[in-house]
C-alpha cells in the first residue's frame, strides 16, 4: 500500500490554510451586508444586522486564528441557524435554496472546534494555546 506519511507531515499547515480561506470567504458575507463591498447584500433586517456582526467579527477571528475553537463553535451554530431560517424554507435541496455554502461552513467550523487552528494562528503564535 502507498504510504501517506510524507503528506501527513504537512497536514497542520494545510489546516491553517483551509481555515484562513474559509475565514476570508465568510468575511465577504459580513462586508457585503454592512459596507456593500464588493457588492450590495440582501435587504437588511434586524436579524441580518446581527448576522453581519457575527460574520465580520467571526470571520476576522477565524482568519487570525484567535480563540479558534470557541469562535468556530459559535459560527457552526450560527450557520446551522442561517440555513434553517434563510434557506431551508425555500426548498429541501441546498442547490435550489442556495444554502449549500451555509452547510459547508457549518461542518467546517464544527471540524475546527475539534481540530483547532493549526500552526499558523494567533492561538499558537501569541496566545500559546491550541
Amino acid at each position, binding site marked *: 500500500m502507498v504510504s501517506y506519511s510524507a503528506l*501527513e507531515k504537512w497536514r497542520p499547515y494545510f*489546516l491553517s490554510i483551509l481555515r484562513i480561506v474559509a475565514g476570508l*470567504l465568510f468575511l*465577504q458575507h459580513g462586508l457585503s451586508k454592512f459596507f456593500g463591498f*464588493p457588492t450590495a447584500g440582501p435587504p437588511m433586517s434586524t436579524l441580518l444586522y446581527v448576522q453581519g456582526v457575527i460574520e465580520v467579527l467571526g470571520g476576522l477571528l477565524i482568519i487570525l486564528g484567535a480563540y479558534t475553537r470557541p469562535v468556530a463553535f459559535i459560527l457552526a451554530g450560527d450557520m446551522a441557524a442561517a440555513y434553517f431560517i434563510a434557506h431551508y424554507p425555500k426548498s429541501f435541496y441546498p442547490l435550489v435554496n442556495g444554502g449549500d455554502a451555509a452547510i459547508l461552513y457549518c461542518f467546517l467550523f464544527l471540524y475546527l472546534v475539534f481540530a483547532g487552528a493549526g500552526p499558523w494562528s494567533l492561538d499558537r503564535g501569541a496566545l500559546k494555546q491550541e
Partner: protein
Amino acid sequence: MQAIAARLQPFAPHALSLLRIMAALLLLEYAFLKLFDFPTAPDFPMETIFYVAGVIELVGGLLLLLGLFTRPVAFILSGETAIAYFHTHAPHSFHPIVNGGGMAVFFCFVFLYLVFAGGGVWSLDRLVLKQD
C-alpha cells in the same frame, strides 16, 4: 482552555469524516445538476467541459462519500474545482461573492486539506483497506 482543547482533540477524526461526507454530498448535487437535471436544471448552457466536470464530480463525489481512496480522489477534485473556479467564475469578477465561485473555492481548499488529512475514522480507507 488547554484542558478543553485536550478533550476535544480526540474527536477531530470523527468531525473530519463528517466534513468529508457533507462536502461529498454537496459536490454530488452539482454532478446531479449537470448530468441528470436534478433537483433542477442548470441555469447555464451545457458545454462539453461541463459534462466532463459532471462525471468527475459524480465519480469523485461517490468515492469521497464512501471515503475510498480519499487522498488521490481529493487531489483530483481539488484540481477540478480550481479549474472550475478559473474557467467559469474568475473571468466575471475578482471577488468570489460577485462571480459566484465561492463554493468552488471552498470545495477546492477542503479537498486540498483532505489530500493531507485523509478521510478520518468513518471511511472505507480506514475500515476496509486499513490504510489512512
